[in-house]
């Protein structure tokens, strides 16, 4: 089986037989990286699951950047004329809701069936018959989703913030707007975290991928709209349960924009932030719990 062609009389025959692995194994703490990378590469394969939404985010960035650049000193006022700001200041916070929309698209095509898809295809057996712990799986999948969502939610605002800095006319203005960068990172991180965790929690709750998509869509769109309306009319915290509006409210507050605030205007940004953080925490807890309980029954379940 393991012979080389006879080249010369002095030739050697190499043993191509099996070699044991003598190196050390990577520590268990790195397994999540492997899972995360796989999540990214499999999502990247088709054009419509991820790339199309990414393209949308790129377009938003270009438009917002263009608005900043071309209409930089155009002043806009609200109807009462009380508040005013320049276009270049408004472009960044107003673009956040568009990034959110692109992220929602990805959550429909990928996020809301991450765990459900694995449950249906028997992939749990594949994972847990190896030295993968439930927490590695959870961190890996969420990490992968984070990495997918970051270019959409985080990279765009960050680029816009940098562009805004570049548009500064003098050093004072530059220093004055330096805070834009950490603010953009903060809001970007929030958005990324929300869309990397909450849809996945829905997919972990409902083992059927399609139902998970429907329930997540209903929660985000319909329930979100309802609670934000209730919140507006009751002036209560309940509106903060609407993730889209909450993100918007936090963005507007961070960038100090009080124009055309829409539904977000009635929301206390602190409450909105708290709601977002609670959502993220609850989502991670749900995914962790569900994966843990599926873990034991995942392997060898031939009945």
């Amino acid at each position, binding site marked *: 089986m393991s012979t080389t062609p006879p080249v010369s009389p002095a030739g050697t025959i190499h043993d191509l037989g099996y070699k044991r692995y003598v190196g050390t194994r990577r520590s268990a703490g790195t397994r999540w990286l492997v899972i995360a990378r796989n999540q990214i590469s499999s999502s990247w394969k088709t054009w419509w699951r991820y790339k199309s939404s990414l393209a949308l985010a790129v377009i938003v960035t270009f438009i917002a950047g263009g608005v900043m650049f071309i209409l930089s000193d155009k002043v806009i006022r609200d109807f009462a004329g009380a508040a005013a700001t320049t276009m270049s200041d408004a472009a960044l916070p107003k673009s956040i809701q568009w990034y959110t929309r692109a992220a929602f698209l990805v959550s*429909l*095509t990928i996020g809301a069936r991450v765990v459900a898809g694995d449950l249906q295809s028997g992939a749990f057996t594949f994972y847990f018959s190896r030295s993968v712990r439930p927490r590695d799986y959870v961190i890996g999948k969420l990490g992968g989703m984070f990495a997918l969502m970051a270019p959409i939610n985080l990279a765009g605002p960050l680029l816009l913030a940098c562009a805004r800095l570049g548009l500064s006319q003098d050093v004072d203005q530059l220093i004055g707007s330096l805070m834009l960068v950490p603010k953009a990172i903060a809001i970007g991180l929030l958005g990324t975290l929300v869309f990397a965790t909450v849809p996945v929690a829905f997919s972990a709750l409902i083992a*059927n991928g*399609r*139902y998970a*998509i*429907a329930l997540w*869509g209903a929660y985000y769109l319909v329930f979100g709209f*309802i609670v934000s309306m209730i919140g507006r009319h009751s002036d209560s915290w309940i509106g903060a349960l609407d993730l889209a509006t909450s993100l918007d409210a936090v963005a507007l507050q961070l960038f100090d924009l009080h124009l055309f605030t829409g539904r977000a205007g009635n929301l206390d940004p602190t409450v909105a932030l708290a709601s977002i953080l609670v959502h993220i925490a609850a989502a991670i807890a749900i995914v962790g719990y569900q994966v843990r309980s599926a873990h034991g029954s995942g392997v060898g379940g031939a009945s």
Partner: protein
Amino acid sequence: MTEKRIPSTRSTTLTIAFVTWLRILRRRALWVSMVIAAMPVLYAGAMMSLIGSGERSSPVSGDLFAIELLVLALLAPMFVATAIGEEVEDRTTTYLWSRPIARWSVLAGKLLTLVPLMIVLVSASWSLAGWIAWDRLPPMQTYSALAACALAMSLVATGIASLSPKHGMALTIVYLLFFDFPLGVLPQTLREMSLGHQVRTLSGMFPDESGLLSAAISLVAIALVWTVVAALRVRRIEA
């Protein structure tokens, strides 16, 4: 033994409808859909307790109807695209296509169960929400508009799911939410292509919209396009 004749299309459609119903009944689809359909009721209840009886203004009813449309835009893909997509994915189409039946009757049978089911769910939710909001049932016209909407969206879902069985559901939701509904707020000519817009017109709740007849015609046209797509496509699906 039995004489050998092919089943009538009526009996085929009814049988498929029966199977679809049994399968829906025995899995989680029903309660998931009930949760979704309950949302407008929640809205109506909350708004009424907040605003009180004095201000039963049109914005709330407009919102309520918009929410019902959103609910349908999720339910229709969930029911229809799942019913078709799973059939192809699980390869149970081999059972169906090897029978002496016309293929479109399979689609018809599924719709025969799913569309009335959706209409019942949405009507119940709409009645309850309306009753809470206005102390009376909403006008008949709105019911017919919702029913037409349920049918039309199901046909859209049928078309898209027959094109892409595996991802039909996500694609249909994206189509309705990110293409159809936004079209509805665009200028006249493009608006005609939006199901959502036509249904709003048909409901009669939005007086500024254009004529009923033209809306009905547009709605039928859009639904027909997707029906033709589905009918052509299903003839070619191999098992």
